[in-house]
C-alpha cells in the first residue's frame, strides 16, 4: 500500500477572501500561496517562472498590494484578501485592463500576462493617472520575453483613460 509522507498531508487550513469570495482551503503546511492557489484551489491563472522571486510571473494582490506568491507561505494568508487574474472581470465583463491588453497586443504568449494585469490594477487603484515612467517602474518586477513591454505600457495607458471615463459617467 502506497502511503502518503507526513509532510504532504493537508494538515493546515486557512480562511481567506479570494477574488471577493470567502474561501476555506486545507493544504500541506510547507506550501506557498502560489502552490495552494494552483494545486489546492484550481486557480491556475497565476503562474510560476523561476521559484526564486525573480521573474514576477506569480504576482497576485495581497491586501491590494502586488506580492510574489511564490515567496509567500499560504499560512501567512489566513484572513487575508487575495486577488488573482480570475477575479479581475465583473458581471461577465472584462476589466478595462483586460480589454486593452487584448486589443493592443499586450499579451503574446500570455504567460506573464496575469501577473502584469494584477500589478497594473494595483498601480491604477493607487495612482489613476500614472506617467509612462511610473508605469515602467510599477511593472519593472514583471519580466516578459515576448512583447518588449511597449504595447503593455500603451494598454495600461488606454485602460486608465477608459476607467477615468467610466468614473465620470458613473457619478
Amino acid at each position, binding site marked *: 500500500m*502506497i*502511503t502518503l509522507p507526513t509532510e504532504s498531508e493537508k494538515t493546515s487550513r486557512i480562511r481567506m477572501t479570494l477574488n471577493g469570495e470567502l474561501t476555506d482551503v486545507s493544504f500541506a503546511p510547507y506550501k506557498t500561496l502560489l502552490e495552494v492557489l494552483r494545486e489546492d484551489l484550481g486557480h491556475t491563472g497565476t503562474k510560476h517562472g523561476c521559484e526564486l522571486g525573480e521573474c514576477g510571473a506569480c504576482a497576485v494582490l495581497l491586501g491590494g498590494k502586488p506580492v510574489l506568491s511564490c515567496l509567500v507561505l499560504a499560512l501567512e494568508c489566513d484572513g487575508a484578501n487575495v486577488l488573482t487574474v480570475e477575479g479581475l472581470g465583473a458581471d461577465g465583463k472584462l476589466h478595462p485592463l483586460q480589454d486593452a491588453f487584448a486589443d493592443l497586443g499586450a499579451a503574446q504568449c500570455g*504567460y506573464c500576462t496575469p501577473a502584469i494585469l494584477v500589478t497594473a490594477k494595483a498601480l491604477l487603484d493607487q495612482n489613476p493617472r500614472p*506617467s509612462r515612467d511610473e508605469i515602467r*517602474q510599477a511593472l519593472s518586477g514583471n*519580466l516578459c520575453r*515576448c512583447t518588449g513591454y511597449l504595447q503593455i505600457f500603451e494598454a495600461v495607458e488606454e485602460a486608465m483613460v477608459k476607467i477615468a471615463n467610466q468614473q465620470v459617467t458613473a457619478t
Partner: protein
Amino acid sequence: MADQKSTATLPAKDAETKQGKLRVIGVPRRRVDARAKVTGQTRFADDIFLPRMVHCKLLRSPHPHARIKKIDVSRALVHPGVYLVLTGKDLSIEYGILPISQDEQALCLDHVRHVGDPIAAVIAREELTAFEALDLIDVEYELLTTISDPEEALATPEPRIHDYGEEGNVHKRVALEFGNVEQSFAEADEVFEDVFFYQGSTHLPIEQHAAVAIKDPDGKLTIWSSTQTPHYLHRALAKVLEMPAAHIRVIATPNGGGFGGKSDPFNHEIVVAKAALVLDRPVKICLTREEVFYCHRGRHPVLMKFKTGVKRDGTITGMHLQTLIDGGAYGSYGVASTFYTGALQTTTYHIPRYRFQGCRAFTNKPPCGPKRGHGTVQPRFGQEVQLDKIAEKLAIDPAELRLRIVEKSDTVTANFLRLGTVHLAECIRRVVKSSGWHDKFRKLPEGRGVGLACSAYLTGAGLPIYWNKMPHSGVQLKLDRGGGIAVFCGATEIGQGSDDVLAGIVAEVLGVSTFDIRLFTGDTDLGPVDLGSYSSRVTLMAGNAAIQAAERAKAMLAEAVAQQLEVPKENLTFADNRVFDEAAPDKCVTFAEAVCMAEAMFGTVGTVGSYTPPKSPALYKGGGVGPSPTYSYTAAVIEVEVSPTTGWITVPKIWIAHDIGRALNPTLARGQVEGSVYMGLGEALMEEQEFRRLPKKLSHALVHKFPSMLEYKSPTSLDMPEVFTELIEEPDPRGPFGAKEVGQGPLLPIMPAVANAVYDAVGVRIDEVPITPEKIMKALAEKKAGRAPRYGPSHFPNIEWPEALRVPPPWEGGDGNAVNEPARRAKPRPEKEKVHNS
C-alpha cells in the same frame, strides 16, 4: 524618457487584392486567443491536473563529464509514495531532432556529457516525494576530463564526448566555395580582416518546460507538452517507445514562450510518456528554472573571422568567412546551425565570390541549438560591424555604402539562394529619415552616438528536417450548417500569433468574422501535419495551405449559391457572413445558408489545403540550409548614450523598418518587431550563457555561472527604449496575401547597430557580444594608452578544413552543383498546382 507614445506609422493605403478591399487582413484587431490569455484561462501544460495524476522528477548529473559505473535505485524504490524509478536501460534507443545526429538518450545509459544530463527518473504520488527520492539514488561516477570551449575541444581528441562526428571532439566541419575568393582579394582596393566573438545566450521563456502524459482509456498514448514541434516529438516518441505513431497523440499546449527553446524532442517528454504507459496513470513533469538552463538549445557561442575585399566605391569583390562554434554536449540542430552561420551573408549585399568554412565542436556544456535567428545572428553581427569599419575607412556614409550594394529582388545569390522581394533599400531610407541619421552620425556630442545595421532572414526553412516530398503544412476545414468553421492544422501557437493568422486568412477568404472560427491546432491527431513553429515558417506555409483550403470551400459554396440564386458565380461576393451579388443586392444568402446549399448539392462540406516550398536551386551538399520561399529584410538605427567614466550604456531610442510584404494583423506584426528588438537588446547588452570552473581544490568542474533568473540578466520594462517601427508593405506573391516573416528578422540588426553606435559615441570598437560597461572601460583605457581602441577576440585558430566543395556562382556558369562532387540532379518534383490566389 519623453512621454511620447511610440506609434507605428502603419501604411494607410487600402490593401487592394483581386477580391477587392480586405476586411480582416491588414486590419489591426484583437487576436483570437487574446481573451483566454487576459483572463488567465489559457491552459498551459503545467495547468493540467487530472485524477490519479502522479509526478515525475529527473535526477541530473552534477558532473560535466563522467562515466556511470553503477546506479542503485533500490532505496528510492521503497521510499513512501514512490511508484516507479526509470534509468537509462529502460529507454536506451537514441533520438535527436536531426536524422544525422540521433545522439541523445532520454536517460543517460553510461555516459553523462554535461551538468544537468538526466540519468534517472522518479515517479511518485507527490512532486515533493519524487524530489526527495532523487537523493536516495546512489550513483557511482568515473570523472572524465571536461572540455569547456571549442579551442580546448580541438586540442583534446580524447576522451570523446561522442563517438560520431568528424574526429575527436569535432562534431562537424563544412567548407564551401563559390568562385575564387583569392582572386577577388587581389582585385580589391582594400581587404579587411576582422575577428568577432558572439557569446551564447538562452531563450529564457517565462514558462518552464512541462508535459503530462496518459495512457488513454482505449490504451493509446496521449501527451500534452509545451513544445514548438509536436510533429517531430511524435516521430521521436514512436522511435524511442517502439510504438506505431498512429497510437501516439501529441498535443502542443500553448507555449509560454518558445523562441527555439522548445523545438527539440526532450528527455522529460519521453520519460513521462514511458511512465504513463507503465503505470497506466497520468504522469506530469514540470522543470525547475535551473533545469531549463540545462535543457538550453540556445544561441551557439561563435568565434568568427571575416575577410572581405572591397573596391574604393564600396562594392564587395569577395568574402571569406570562418566560424568556430561551441555546440555543447549534443548535436541538437547543430549541423544546421553550422551551415546557417555561413548561409545568409549573401542575401543582403551583392557578394560575387564567397568562401565559407564552419566548424562545430562538442563541449561539456548544455547543448546549443536554435534560438531566434538560429545561427544567422552571430555572423550578421560580424558582417554589419565590419561594414561599419569599411565605410569609415572608405569615407562613405554607412547608409550610403549599403544603398550602393544591396541585392536586388529575385536574385539567385552566389550560394544559390533564390531571393523573393527585396525592399532593403526602402528600409534603409526609412530609418535614415525617421532617425535624423544625417544630423546625428559623427555629429553628436561625446558619449552619444548612433549606429546603423541591416539584416535578412528566411521565411521558413525551404527543406524539411527529415528528407521527404510531402507538404510542409496542411489545413483541413469543416464547414457547419450553423455557419461555424472548424480549422484543423498542426501549426503550433507559441505566442507568435499562428492561430490568429489561420483564423484571419480563413475569415477573409470566406467572408466571415474570426469569431465564427474555431481552431484545432498543434494536435497530431486532429490536424494535418505542420512541421512546427521554427524558422519563421508558419505564417507563409500554414497561411498558404489555409488559403488553398478556404478557396476550395468558397468555390463549392459559390457554385451552390449561384445555382440557387441563378447568378453567375463570378459575381458572388463573400463578406459580412453573407454571399451576395453586388450588382443585385436582393440576390443574397447568409453564409450558413450557403453552407447548407453546398451540403445539399455536394454532400458534407470539407476541404483541405497544403503547401510545399518551391525547389531550391542549391543542389550542392550542404545547400539544404538557407533556401526559403522568400526572405524578410530589416534596417535599424539605434541611439546610445555611453558614460565615458563608467562605460554604462543606455539606449533611449531605436528606429526600425522591416520589409514584411504585408502585415496580416498589424498589431501583432508590430509586437513581433518590438519583441525581436527587446530580445536583441538583451543579447547586445547583458545576456550570457556563461560557464566557469570551480576551484581546483573543489572539483575544478565546469559549471553554469548563472543557472537562475536572479543572475542571468534580461531586460526589464526599465531597459526598453522607445521603438519607432515602420512596416514596409510591398506584398510578395510567394506569401499569403503577400506576407513574409517578422518573428525573427528584426532581432538581427540590433546587436551590430548597438556596437556601431557605441563606436560613434565613444570611439571604441567592441567586437564581441554582450557589450558591457566593463569591456567599454577596458577599450577606453586602450584608447587612452594610444593602442587600438578595441575590445574583442584577437585571433582565430587555424583549423584543418576539409577540401571545399567548389560551386561556381550563377554568374560564372554554375548550375547549383559542386564541380568536385558527383552532380546531384534533384529529381524534378511534379509541379505543385499553383497554390494560392489562383
